[in-house]
């Protein structure tokens, strides 16, 4: 009875159960027969699972909006070197000649978000900060997914003591607030070693248990299906069964949770940098920008506002995209 860890404790990005839409389905349809009342996808029933999901995702306005915003942020992060320094002055360096004169300027056409306490353009800094957030979000989640899927797969497929061992390890991880663990790991590092790599490793290495559980659950339920038995009866090897038959059908919940987790990883990076454990100046990260401008909350609250809005909108975009992907893939996220 794994009641306790049904929701990752410290990691608050709890998957929610899919909202069941009310509708005529439930009254018109009879179990055991297909419902002719609402044959929505008659015209494209030949699509694959992913093709169909992509079709449905495109019809979800919020998800498309979220995807658009993510693409804009990614594009800005990639192309920053080409236009940001030219437009607003290089926000990564302190220009000692102009710093005093440019200090804490209000919002203007030249500095759309104003300038910070060292006379650097805040919009430019926010754009450069997105590089860290996106990198941490994507790479850390990728690490979690790889470890989690691997361990979840062997755990679900082989069962027995392998399963017990892996699940007990996830218990240990999930029994304790995620952020505290990350703080502990990063805090014992000397300040000169702190930076983006330890942050990515800390978030990535702590995030895998949820993926392991999710994938294990999917594998267990998919394993019960007849076509897996059929494959086994035909003499398919373990790895072939795993990669060709089970994994493609068990991966959908992982994709959904991974999308949402990118936002979670961005939030964790911001929190760690805010606590002084993550990205160190002069490197720019949104959390670190908030930390370094905390002292100006009374005199220049915009310094705190902008990076926070950047985090909010980007994380929100990943949350909404995750919701959209979940609905598009029709995944019930319960465990």
């Amino acid at each position, binding site marked *: 009875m794994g009641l306790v860890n049904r929701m990752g404790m410290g990691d608050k990005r709890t998957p929610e159960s899919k909202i069941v839409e009310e509708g*005529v389905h439930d*009254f*018109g349809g*009879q179990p055991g027969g297909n*419902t*002719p*009342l*609402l044959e929505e996808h008659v015209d494209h029933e030949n699509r694959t699972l992913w093709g169909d999901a992509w079709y449905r995702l495109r019809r979800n306005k919020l998800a498309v909006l979220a995807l658009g915003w993510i693409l804009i942020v990614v594009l800005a992060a990639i192309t920053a070197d080409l236009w940001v320094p030219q437009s607003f002055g290089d926000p990564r360096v302190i220009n000692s000649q102009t710093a005093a004169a440019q200090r804490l300027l209000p919002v203007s056409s030249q500095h759309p978000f104003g300038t910070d306490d060292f006379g650097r353009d805040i919009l430019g800094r926010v754009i450069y900060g997105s590089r860290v957030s996106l990198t941490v979000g994507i790479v850390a989640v990728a690490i979690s997914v790889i470890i989690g899927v691997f361990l979840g797969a062997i755990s679900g497929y082989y069962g027995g003591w392998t399963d017990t061992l892996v699940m007990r390890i996830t218990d240990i991880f999930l029994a304790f607030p995620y952020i505290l663990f990350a703080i502990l790991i990063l805090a014992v590092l000397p300040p000169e070693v702190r930076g983006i790599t330890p942050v990515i490793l800390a978030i990535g290495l702590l995030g895998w248990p949820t993926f392991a559980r999710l994938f294990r659950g999917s594998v267990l339920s998919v394993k019960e299906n007849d076509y897996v038995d059929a494959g086994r009866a035909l003499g398919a090897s373990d790895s072939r069964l795993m990669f060709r038959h089970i994994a493609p059908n068990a991966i959908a919940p992982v994709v959904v949770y991974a999308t949402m987790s990118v936002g979670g990883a961005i939030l964790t990076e911001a929190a760690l940098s805010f606590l002084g454990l993550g990205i160190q100046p002069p490197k720019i990260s949104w959390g670190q920008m908030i930390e370094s401008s905390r002292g100006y909350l009374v005199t220049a609250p915009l310094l705190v506002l902008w990076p926070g809005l950047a985090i909010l909108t980007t994380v929100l975009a990943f949350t909404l995209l995750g919701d959209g992907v979940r609905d598009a893939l029709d995944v019930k996220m319960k465990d």
Partner: protein
Amino acid sequence: MAEHLLVVDDLKMHFHTRDGVVKAVDGVSYTLDSGETLGVVGESGSGKSVHALTMMGLIPMPPGKVEGGDVLFRGTSLIAMNDDDLRKIRGNEIAMIFQDPMTSLNPVYRIGRQLAEPLIIHKGFSKHDAWARAVELLRLVGIPHPESRVRDYPHQFSGGMRQRVMIAMALACDPYILIADEPTTALDVTIQAQIIELMQEIQKRTNSAIIMITHDLGVVADIADKVLVMYAGKPAEVGACDDVFYKPLHPYTWGLMDSIPRHDILDAKTELCPIKGQPPSLIDAPPGCSFEPRCPYAQDVCREKTPGLREISEGHYAACHFAGDEGFERNVVACAGVSA
């Protein structure tokens, strides 16, 4: 003419969805009297359940909307009735049993509480009296040791036992009409027979009317006095049970008969012959007979004109252009042609 217990007159329930209007029930009519059993048969999505839920006011509106017709229960319209009055009838004068006994009982409440509920709401029983009556009801439906089982939770009962509990719950207020929506579908065959027997026994005792909704023609043949065959939201054939079974008029009914194993005809040559094709989409149905695409006897007129329900012989109606015509009969060759 004596007043019927229930008169369903050209009832239409349509759902307004983003994809169009779904005509789930489109012109159903019949009458029902005390002690009578009506069997409603049809495939999934034929509107047989929706029509019952419509009478009970259990269809959420929107998206549902009664587009026409009426249901008179003891002379009063259920369609025009306001929610509060209808609620006094639900579970009290008309009760309903659902398909899946595994999920139709609330898992977090004791059986006794769920049985007592309608008595407390409708009959003003005290909690204590209602629980006492719950024990009697359980005994009535044949549950052993009702005194102790009344304190159990649904998950402690087997499927067949749970359906007995559902029946007990429906009977709590001595309803005039018992609507059973596929009450045996989710059960084992041996249990199915027991449940049907129980319902017949109770009907004898209480003289209530039963509407038995099912896709199992065997059940209908066992229990029904009247049969309504539904297809794509419309009635295909209505009549006395014997008429419909021994002198079926509609090609769809013929198809249904051919698609079930018959134990009364032990002819090795009679093979099972499923109706080919799928029921049509109920959205924006084209004019013409809705069974036409699957009908082996279809003619041009079937594509152009929607057939209405006609009385072919006394009390026996069918919605087919050719029903009752000389020489229009069930054709074994047509079946063979399909399976070939």
